[in-house]
């Protein structure tokens, strides 16, 4: 378990980015941190592998205070994907980029390359294995950044804005990978503005505002509350927003706490067939 105990953090410039955040992240969860630009999501994620240390308060990873160990040691357990992929690239080829960390963490060269190849194939980046990471397109860079961390299979994976730049297909692959990781008892922490993606994968949603947690709960409870969401500068996902509107137009029997497409299809087809029947009765 990763635990943040009243964490405060200020940058050297004086900006107080976290103001007394207390949270925990467990294995088997996919937690999404959401909130306005500048709310402190990235700052929080950088605390998880010790890149930033709290100004006040404590962060512990499986009981170990991040202040008592090094980033290199922690990273084996907590993999962090940066918000801007450009900032992660250190090597001259895509394949090297992925195998590099594996080797740092002790894998044999051949084994590292084999494993790197597998991850690259999952994201359809194998074709670019010999290209320089910097010549990739925006979305390809994002996928590479995620592959780098997926390769060494850390116990906790923190991804800063996983979907920015990804296309529909990339998002589905990612969602599947994340769900698999969750099922194999790993802990996943995301930051995101993408309410639709979060609706599909998250098991818990934490809303941040100006460095404070304003809400923490199940996606069905948090992402279906337009007022709460707008406090965090987020839009309501399309399905609850539709159901909400239908309810306000008199269809009060509709449950608006639905996020998934299949659930909405089911509810609305019932409504339609019912309306169809009454329609026939009328004529």
């Amino acid at each position, binding site marked *: 378990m990763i635990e943040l105990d009243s964490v405060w953090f200020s940058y050297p410039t004086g900006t107080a980015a976290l103001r007394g955040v207390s949270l925990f992240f467990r294995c088997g969860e996919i937690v999404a941190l959401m909130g306005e630009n500048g709310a402190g999501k990235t700052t929080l994620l950088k605390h998880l592998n010790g890149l930033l240390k709290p100004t006040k308060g404590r962060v512990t990873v499986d009981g170990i205070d991040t202040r008592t160990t090094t980033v290199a040691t922690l990273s084996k357990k907590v993999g962090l994907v940066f918000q801007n992929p450009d900032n992660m690239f250190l090597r001259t080829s895509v394949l090297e980029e992925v195998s590099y*960390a594996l080797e740092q963490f002790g894998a044999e060269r051949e084994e590292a390359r084999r494993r790197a190849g597998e991850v690259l194939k999952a994201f359809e980046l194998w074709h670019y294995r010999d290209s320089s990471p910097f010549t990739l397109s925006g979305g390809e860079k994002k996928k590479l950044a995620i592959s780098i961390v997926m390769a060494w299979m850390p116990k906790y994976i923190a991804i800063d804005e996983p979907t920015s730049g990804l296309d529909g297909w990339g998002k589905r692959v990612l969602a599947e990978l994340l769900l698999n990781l969750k099922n194999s008892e790993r802990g996943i922490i995301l930051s995101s503005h993408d309410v639709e993606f979060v609706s599909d994968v998250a098991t818990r949603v934490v809303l941040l505002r100006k460095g404070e947690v304003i809400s923490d709960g199940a996606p069905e409870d948090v992402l279906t509350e337009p007022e709460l969401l707008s406090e965090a500068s987020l839009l309501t996902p399309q399905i609850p927003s539709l159901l909400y509107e239908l309810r306000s137009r008199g269809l009060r029997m509709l449950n608006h706490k639905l996020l998934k497409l299949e659930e909405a299809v089911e509810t609305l087809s019932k409504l339609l067939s019912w309306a169809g029947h009454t329609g026939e009765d009328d004529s």
Partner: protein
Amino acid sequence: MSLSLLQALKYRSLDTPIHRLDPRVKLLASFSFLVTALVFGDYWGGMLTVATTIILTQLTILELAKSARYLLTTIKGATPLVALVFILSLLGILDSPLQTLEILYRASASSVRFLAFLTSFNLFFLTTSPDEFGQLLLKLKIPYVYTFTFVAAVRLAPVIADEAQEIIDAQRSRGVEFERGNPVKRVRALVGIFIPLLINSLRRAYEMAEALEVKCFGASERRTSYREIRASKRDVLASIITISSLALALLARGLGLFSGLP
């Protein structure tokens, strides 16, 4: 050493009366420090006194600018150089028929003068932003392209510093140990950042060139300045003080007023 010297010269954006002064005044002040240190070049002609005064004056002004500690850092960083000057001047006068005390005095005076010399532009660099500097160059009728090249180079510096930090963070996050282990290993780790830093800096320079283009750099002959430097009453006052101090110093030197003083 060299790194801390540069760090100490880096402009820091603070809001103090000194930072708000017209950069031309600060350039004049730094220039006066230099000239004064230069003209008082005779032992027993006030050399040590004047050099010490210059350093103390600059410290006082920088204290007002909340930056005195950066001057101290420069001084600390410059110690090896100053020591070198001290030793060289000792060697140069050692076989002359002078007394030990006299030799020591001369070596110290030269060293302090050298330090005054070396630090004379700290005031200017510490409190003038590269943009103000650019505008200053423009006011001095230096063509925009040169001014820009200079400003761009200065601007790239924080980008590269930023980049270096990002690379270190990226490596640490992938298991490269910087914080622990024997010195040899740590030096190896540091060497490891150079190649990515070089590649990334080139890339950033290239990106900056692209950004310049889409921001219409060079599109119009007549470029304007949003924040033009304009002298205020305070600036005039500050320049009067600077110019009269310099004039007094030159006068004192010309009349030999300080002769006999250390």
